[in-house]
């Protein structure tokens, strides 16, 4: 295969993974490769990265694809090729060629030797030694077999578990001695954790290399392909992913706020400002050539946010609350309510606590949301909302309800939603389930949907962002652009 073919395959893979790569950028990449030392892997990667990826959020997908496509070739165990052909092999703590029986608990002594070597590598921050140990560990512990359709994560888990990677830092901290103050100990521990993460990365790379050698790049790239962060399913994200999503919420809302402000400004000009127009006209001899307008007063909705926080919906409610609170400057007033089978106002927690985490913790500890058995009851919750807060709804209010509308076969009381809808500007329902699941089993989405202004399937940050944008500037999409005013 020529370089051009490989590059074309690589770009195809990036596009499959959701990174938009234009023709021009592909040509740039080829161009850039002409100026660098092709043997220098990091230069090669930088050249491709700078020309093909134009968004920092896409780096992770790019890294994965790059590692797969341009892995340093290594053969699988079981081939006769000697894997320990690095310089400095003699420093590695185990003799190679033994203990290759797939690490089914066999060779316990070897494992202990590996761990000792790893601890040494970590405490000296010796990257070469870490790499060698990663190779050995995968050899002996991952139990990789040719052609077995198992994902890389499985092997990674297996290798790290046998090395007891999670306990290593603690072991090293114990060795570090007791004379460290808490503060120093913390800094040292963080340094060790950082190094251990680098070792994990080495193991991951090693496994990837072998998978590629076994199954070929396209197949491996496909199994490793992950959705971009803004498309991750909020309901099924792992803990690590949730943390990433959480960190992304704030920057995302800032961007959205900036975009909304711009659109609002451009959207409509206010009434004629007579005074400023006349003043301007003096420079053109009293002829009002350049009419001036007041800034329009933006109409901001008054938002009532109702979140189902029962077990299955808790994660989703959390992101919705975080997102909507981060956008609160866009609303004239924001009140939040949480419910399971009873409903309680949560606004006070968010107003009193400086910190969002703290507020959430208080919501789950103090809000009174369980009335009977702690299973979602939308009907009862709506009834409580209507009875207590119904008189505070105005035509400027927007009610947003989040939840899967799974009512545990209780009466939905949709007529109450009809009453609410009658009082307010709009009722939106955000459902984190795929549209196809609605109205199956105990879901009563349809009976509520009848009274909603709009029902959105919201399963990712991107969809949440889209919803807020639609809500704040509802007419934007349908209204034709005003002709540009010449000034």
């Amino acid at each position, binding site marked *: 295969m020529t370089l051009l073919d490989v590059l074309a395959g690589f770009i195809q893979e990036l596009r499959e993974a959701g990174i*938009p790569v*234009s023709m*021009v*950028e592909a040509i*740039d990449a080829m*161009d*850039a490769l002409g*100026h*660098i*030392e092709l043997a220098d892997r*990091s*230069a090669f990667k*930088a*050249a491709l*990265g*700078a*020309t093909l*990826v*134009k*968004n*920092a959020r896409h*780096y992770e997908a790019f890294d994965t694809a790059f590692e797969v496509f341009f892995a340093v070739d290594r053969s699988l165990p079981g081939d006769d090729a000697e894997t320990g052909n690095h310089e400095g092999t003699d420093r590695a703590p185990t003799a190679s060629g033994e203990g290759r029986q797939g690490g089914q608990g066999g060779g316990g002594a070897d494992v202990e030797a590996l761990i000792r070597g790893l601890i040494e590598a970590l405490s000296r921050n010796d990257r070469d030694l870490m790499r060698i140990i990663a190779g050995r560990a995968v050899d002996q512990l991952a139990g990789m077999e040719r052609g077995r359709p198992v994902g890389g*994560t499985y092997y*990674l*888990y297996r290798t*790290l578990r046998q090395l007891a*990677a*999670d306990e290593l*830092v*603690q072991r090293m901290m114990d060795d570090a001695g007791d004379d460290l*103050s*808490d*503060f120093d*100990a*913390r*800094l040292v*521990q*963080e*340094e060790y*954790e*950082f190094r251990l993460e680098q070792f*994990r990365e080495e193991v991951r790379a090693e496994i990837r290399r072998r998978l590629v050698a076994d199954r070929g790049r396209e197949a491996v790239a496909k199994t490793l392909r992950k959705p971009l962060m803004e498309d991750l399913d909020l309901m099924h994200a*792992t*803990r*690590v992913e949730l943390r990433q999503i*959480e*960190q992304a919420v*704030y*920057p995302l809302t*800032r*961007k959205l706020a*900036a*975009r909304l402000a*711009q659109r609002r400004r*451009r959207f409509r000009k206010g009434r004629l400002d007579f005074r400023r127009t006349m003043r301007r006209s003096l420079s053109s001899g009293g002829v009002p050539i350049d009419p001036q307008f007041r800034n329009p007063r933006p109409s901001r909705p008054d938002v009532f946010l109702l979140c189902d926080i029962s077990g299955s919906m808790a994660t989703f409610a959390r992101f919705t609350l975080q997102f909507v609170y981060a956008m609160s400057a866009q609303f004239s007033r924001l009140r939040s309510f949480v419910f399971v089978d009873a409903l309680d106002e949560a606004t006070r927690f968010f107003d009193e606590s*400086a*910190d969002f*985490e703290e507020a959430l913790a208080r919501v789950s500890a103090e809000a009174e949301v369980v009335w009977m058995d702690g299973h979602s009851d939308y009907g009862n919750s709506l009834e409580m909302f209507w009875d207590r807060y119904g008189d505070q709804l105005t035509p400027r209010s927007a009610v947003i309800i989040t939840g899967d509308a799974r009512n545990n076969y209780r009466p939905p009381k949709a007529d109450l939603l009809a009453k609410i809808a009658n009082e307010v500007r709009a009722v939106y329902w955000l459902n984190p389930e795929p549209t196809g699941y609605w109205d199956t089993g105990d879901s009563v989405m349809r009976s509520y949907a009848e009274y909603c202004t709009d029902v959105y399937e919201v399963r990712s940050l991107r969809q949440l962002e889209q919803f807020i944008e639609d809500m704040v500037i509802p007419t934007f999409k349908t209204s034709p652009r005003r002709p540009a005013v010449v000034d």
Partner: protein
Amino acid sequence: MTTDFGSPADVRDALKSVHYLADDRISQVVFLSERLGKPVLVEGPAGVGKTELAKALATIHGRRLVRLQCYEGLDESKAIYEWNYKKQLLRIQADSGSSWERLEDDIFAEEFLLTRPLLEAIRSPEPVVLLIDEVDRVEVETEALLLEVLSDFQISVPELGTVKANSQPLVILTSNNTRELSEALKRRCLFLHISYPEVDREKEILLARVPGLTEDFGEQIARVVRSVRQVPLKKAPSVSESIDWARTLLALGVTAIDPVVVTDTLHVLLKYQGDIDKVAADLQMPQSGTAGSET
């Protein structure tokens, strides 16, 4: 004064000579941009040295730095050129006798042209470094003004025709990523994301920027800053803030860092009271609680 780099390592050394410590990625992208003649779009959190990079490049090349600071409402007349209409009016009044044709030729001459940063960078006889700062602040429509400059290094002025670059400027755009830039703009640039440096590099930066700092103390500071960055904050400390902090600690005569010193000087590192409280509370706890996350 170097004008051409043989390899990314040369770029890195040259930048180092002006106290800008580039990592591999930065030097490689800068090297490519000079070879390919393409602008670099530098993105990253505030205070990691995006603008500094442009300044450092101007210094090592011995070029003039032309800077276009972007803001909302930036338009053609501020970014590219404007006709000096007052002078034009005077000109018209000064010889009211002459024919219209002559006058028309006259008042749209270069004499009446006010150049703004983009045109200035293009027309400069010797090559310059053009810094388009915080490009994410302009409206999407205004971005279009930049496209012609970025891809062809030329500008069309209706009355004068197309002005081609006398010399090819080195173009650096910076963005704080407050909004998504248009595809058209991104396509024309190489992309470079600078994030917070790792401990080793941050230490090097501190040592280069803060005279009198010892190696050990620098490392300690860098480690504490990393620890602080792991706390979820509204605004994590940037490199420029950790430099300020190092200077403060030196000025106070501190030689070893302990939680009390950190808590007392946190306001240098952090800019929100909420963040300061959070970190102060976090420092009371011995463990960071980030141990053993499995992927």
